[in-house]
């Protein structure tokens, strides 16, 4: 194990997979000479050359389209759409092409591509560079969606994503860029659909993903001082979802709080809540609570943005309301 930042883990995982498999290449805006806005691809152009690290025009549709065509021919593209907000301009390629082709073509093709994209508010980037739109991509049969909260999870999930034979949206969080953590040295793959219990507890289950996991862990520490022992589950993979892990935990605690950064309405928390209500109703001894953003765009002003983003206090209050 060695300590690395979230960004280092992204960069090194891509490099390792490109060394391992000559069919892996990266394409996107600023990925080459610039090394990406946050350094996620720094040094890769020098290491692998222009053929495999492709600086593209600002043409998101053509970037994903390039990936779909290349993947259909057997390559393994990593496509970079820096901010998930920009996925709106290439949604046809994601929704109707990447996600659908295998099914529509009767299984004739595999589309093994990865789209790397960031979610998240917290740096004053306003409503077109701060959204958490992961739920959109959980409504697309054919697509897998994962989100990493730690550098170790970056390595395990991104490695799995690149080796997966399907389109995978790999979600990063911009506020985690410098977050440090221990990362396994050797080959490390986290199978999709396997949640991680980041903190074991017995009184309440808190389910989250991406950067919110850390706020949940902080809230859990505060709650423990008040005698509430919270279990924090990082689902890591939204599609496929580890239902069993969530239901087992709720079976133990009887209480469920779902925390996500996206707006509450039609967020992925609603899917998890519905799943537990359907399959685990008898396990619950309190209503399911969601802690999420208000139904507004992300505001710019640091004062407003701070208020908008879910914080520890909101998580703590939601948990306490169940006792």
């Amino acid at each position, binding site marked *: 194990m060695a300590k690395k930042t979230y960004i280092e883990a992204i960069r090194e995982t891509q490099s390792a997979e490109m060394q391992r498999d000559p069919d892996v290449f990266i394409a996107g805006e600023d990925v080459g000479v610039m090394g990406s806005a946050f350094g996620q691809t720094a040094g890769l152009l020098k290491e692998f050359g222009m053929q495999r690290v492709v600086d593209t025009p600002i043409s998101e549709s053509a970037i994903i389209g390039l990936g779909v065509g290349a993947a259909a021919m057997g390559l393994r593209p990593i496509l970079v759409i820096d901010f998930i907000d920009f996925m709106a301009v290439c949604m046809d390629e994601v929704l*109707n092409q990447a996600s659908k082709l295998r099914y529509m*073509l009767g299984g004739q093709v595999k589309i093994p591509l990865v789209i790397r994209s960031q979610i998240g508010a917290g740096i004053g980037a306003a409503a077109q560079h701060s959204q958490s739109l992961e739920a959109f991509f959980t409504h697309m049969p054919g697509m897998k969606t994962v989100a990493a909260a730690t550098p170790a999870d970056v390595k395990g999930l991104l490695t799995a994503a690149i080796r997966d034979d399907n389109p995978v949206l790999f979600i990063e969080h911009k506020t985690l860029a410098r977050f440090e953590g221990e990362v396994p040295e050797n080959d490390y793959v986290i199978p999709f659909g396997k949640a991680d219990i980041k903190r074991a507890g017995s009184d309440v289950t808190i389910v989250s993903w991406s950067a919110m996991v850390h706020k949940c862990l902080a809230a859990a520490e505060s709650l423990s001082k008040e005698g509430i022992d919270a279990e924090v589950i990082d689902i890591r993979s939204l599609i496929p979802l580890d239902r069993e892990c969530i239901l087992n935990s709720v079976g133990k605690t009887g209480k469920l709080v779902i925390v996500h950064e996206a707006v509450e309405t039609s967020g992925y928390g609603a899917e998890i809540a519905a799943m537990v209500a359907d399959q685990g109703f008898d396990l619950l001894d309190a209503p399911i609570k969601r802690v999420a953003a208000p139904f507004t765009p992300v505001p710019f002003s640091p004062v407003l943005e701070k208020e908008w983003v879910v914080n520890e206090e909101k998580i703590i209050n939601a948990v306490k309301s169940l006792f």
Partner: protein
Amino acid sequence: MNLTKDQMLNLYETMVKIREFEEKAKELMLGGKLAGFLHLYCGEEAIAAGVCANLNDKDCITSTHRGHGHIIAKGGDINRMMAELHGKATGYCKGKSGSMHIADLDIGIVGANGIVGAGLPIAVGVAFALRYKKMDNVVVAFFGDGASNRGTFHEALNMASVLNLPVVFICENNHFGMSTPQSVHQKIKDISVRGTAYDIPGKTVDGNDVLAVHEAAAEAIGRARKGGGPSLIECKTWRHYGHFIGDPEPYKDPEEQKKWLATDPIPRFAKYLIESNYAIQADLDAIKNSVREKIEAAVRYAQSSPDPLPEDIYSDVYAG
């Protein structure tokens, strides 16, 4: 370019095969035998035939919602096509596709597409992969005048240009974007001028002249194969029928329709073949009869094929 007699007759046979397939599909649709949408290629046969005659099995195409002609010209199996139109398990896509998304990866048909303009960026990706694997194959992206107004057209041409990829963009200008005449949907008359914007060669040809199409495509495909980058060829043509079967075509001027029908690429090429002593009428009749028999056999194959099973809904969503 001099074509042999066999090549000439192959072009003719391909065109007739497309026409007969489409007329049969129309009859089946109107007879209530087919579900969904059907966008007929009738009138545009010279383009698919003339272009695809320059391609080998490792070369690739992307196609459109009006794609049957491209699939046939690229060597697609009409039995499996007809079965797909009928939604049968033996269809190209096991009944998951229908008319609009037929593919045959084994012979480079990366897929027709139900989204106008979606094939262009995919074609760029296929070309990227071919070059990545150091193959000397090319990709042809078919699309229409309507698609030339989509952002994907512009993004794909620019991307292919800056990456210098082996793609030939074939614009089938049938003068209507669904119901909207070209004069209403764009100010330019020749879509080929848009190549200039991306510094790639642009050429307009008579899309109802199979030999003109063949020659222009041969040049562009040859250039792409040698690493000379992408080209744009606009083939001016005419959709004999509406956008889809059932379209009442209130937007078509009967005089213009009459004028274009007089340039129907099939009788026109038949006349040329006879006048140039490549064939006599009996040869051409024999081709048509043989094609008709194959189409009838395809219908029998399709209609006697098994339906998919209910559990097939769940297969092929994910690989692995």
